[in-house]
């Protein structure tokens, strides 16, 4: 049996989402080249969707609709391929703060999702998906251009500009931070780690070893007095290197892309420091992230 024959056997498993990620990738490559397989997968996907009719419908809780309606009001859409500017423009002036959920730490975005995240962040739809669109005869379902809630958070922050320690009027810095966050989130090797913060809240480290960049998102971090500030640190066996300071957002999520580069063995710590920050930590970290 040739490789192609073997791959062709996977049409059923593929339509049922029963492949491992690496098999899925190999199979999708094969799909690009085989009209027969693509047709078979289309039919099986439709068949699989019919299987859904055997699952008993469940009435969603009443507030789910309200939450979603509020969320979409401030969630940017992927523009149609023909008019890349429309949706981003429409979503760039939300009247209420974006509805953010904690980054789903248990779900790694797929490559396609990351491209989508990138697309949303850049208001751009050609990058990455163009080739797929050109070659995939009917693979819209197999390459769902997907944006996770985490990505929505990134995009929402980008458009809404909820900020931390950076003056909201300093839009170029905001955009730099947002662009960096989007870049990290879109990296092929992006990883996430979540930890509890001493004194309340949850911190999520989002980092890309390939880019050596990282960002921290924190939910429910208490605000400090004007004489204190949060400081980020890269910590290795030799000590701590400063990675930037920030204030807690008044409510909801606080996030910041770390200054400088994250080395391979670094962990990330956050301490409370005197206003202006310190050269070396003067208190114990309220949270440490990145230790495997």
């Amino acid at each position: 049996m040739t490789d192609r024959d073997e791959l062709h056997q996977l049409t059923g498993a593929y339509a049922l989402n029963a492949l491992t990620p690496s098999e899925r990738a190999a199979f999708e490559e094969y799909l690009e080249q085989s009209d027969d397989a693509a047709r078979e997968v289309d039919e099986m996907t439709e068949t699989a969707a019919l299987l859904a009719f055997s699952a008993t419908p469940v009435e969603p809780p009443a507030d789910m609709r309200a939450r979603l309606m509020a969320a979409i009001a401030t969630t940017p859409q992927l523009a149609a391929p023909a008019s890349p500017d429309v949706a981003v423009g429409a979503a760039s002036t939300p009247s209420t703060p974006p509805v953010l959920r904690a980054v789903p730490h248990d779900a790694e975005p797929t490559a396609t999702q990351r491209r989508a995240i990138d697309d949303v962040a850049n208001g751009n739809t050609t990058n990455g998906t163009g080739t797929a669109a050109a070659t995939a005869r009917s693979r819209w379902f197999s390459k769902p251009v997907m944006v996770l809630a985490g990505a929505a958070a990134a995009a929402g922050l980008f458009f809404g500009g909820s900020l931390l320690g950076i003056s909201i009027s300093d839009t170029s810095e905001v955009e730099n931070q947002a662009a960096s966050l989007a870049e990290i989130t879109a990296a092929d090797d992006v990883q996430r780690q979540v930890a509890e913060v001493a004194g309340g809240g949850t911190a999520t480290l989002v980092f890309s070893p390939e880019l050596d960049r990282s960002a921290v998102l924190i939910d429910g971090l208490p605000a400090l007095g004007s004489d204190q500030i949060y400081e980020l640190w890269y910590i290795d066996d030799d000590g701590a290197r400063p990675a930037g300071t920030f204030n807690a957002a008044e409510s909801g999520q606080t996030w910041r892309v770390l200054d400088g580069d994250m080395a391979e063995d670094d962990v990330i710590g956050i301490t409370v420091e005197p206003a202006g920050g310190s050269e070396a930590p003067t208190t114990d970290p309220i949270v440490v992230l990145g230790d495997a």
Partner: protein
Amino acid sequence: MLMLVPSVTRPTKDDQSEGGAVSKEDLLARIAQADQAAFGLLYDDIAPRVLGLIRRLLVDHAQSEEVAQEVFLEIWQTASRFDPAKGAATTWILTMAHRRAVDRIRASQSSRDRDTKVGIRDFAPEYDHVAESAEVTIEHERVKKAMTQLTELQRQAVSLAYYGGYSHSEVAALLSVPIGTVKTRLRDGMIRLRDELGVSS
């Protein structure tokens, strides 16, 4: 509740009427234009179906609702990528929902949780439950009938994969058969279902 509108009589934009007769394809087109009201209509139409499918896989209520919300957010964000020439809106949405549910299962590979919760659950589809619209019941019956045309192994493999969210290697372990056999059974089982259900492209 989901309305199945036969494609030949699917209403066009011109003759759409109040009360859910607008096709989901049309709603998606409007959603792609940032029409929030259309999103609300689509949600009302298909949310129980989406949540039902996801809950079938995840079992856990809270997680299922979370994933369902993600799916609807994804629908909003990516509606412009839906192409009616390539398939029905329902297929697009339910395929997305299934994939996200499976993603969640794989991501939280503390699927041991799930297994203990599920136990040795019977993965045969739930057939009799809840008052459903006549249209849905018809679909239900068709699927049920088609399932009976599969061999025992085909039916078990397809059910475990689709309703259980198990990967083919997990299915192989659960059924104590070689992986290669599972792959083949998933394919010929799906081919059989496709033919029984009259799906063709």
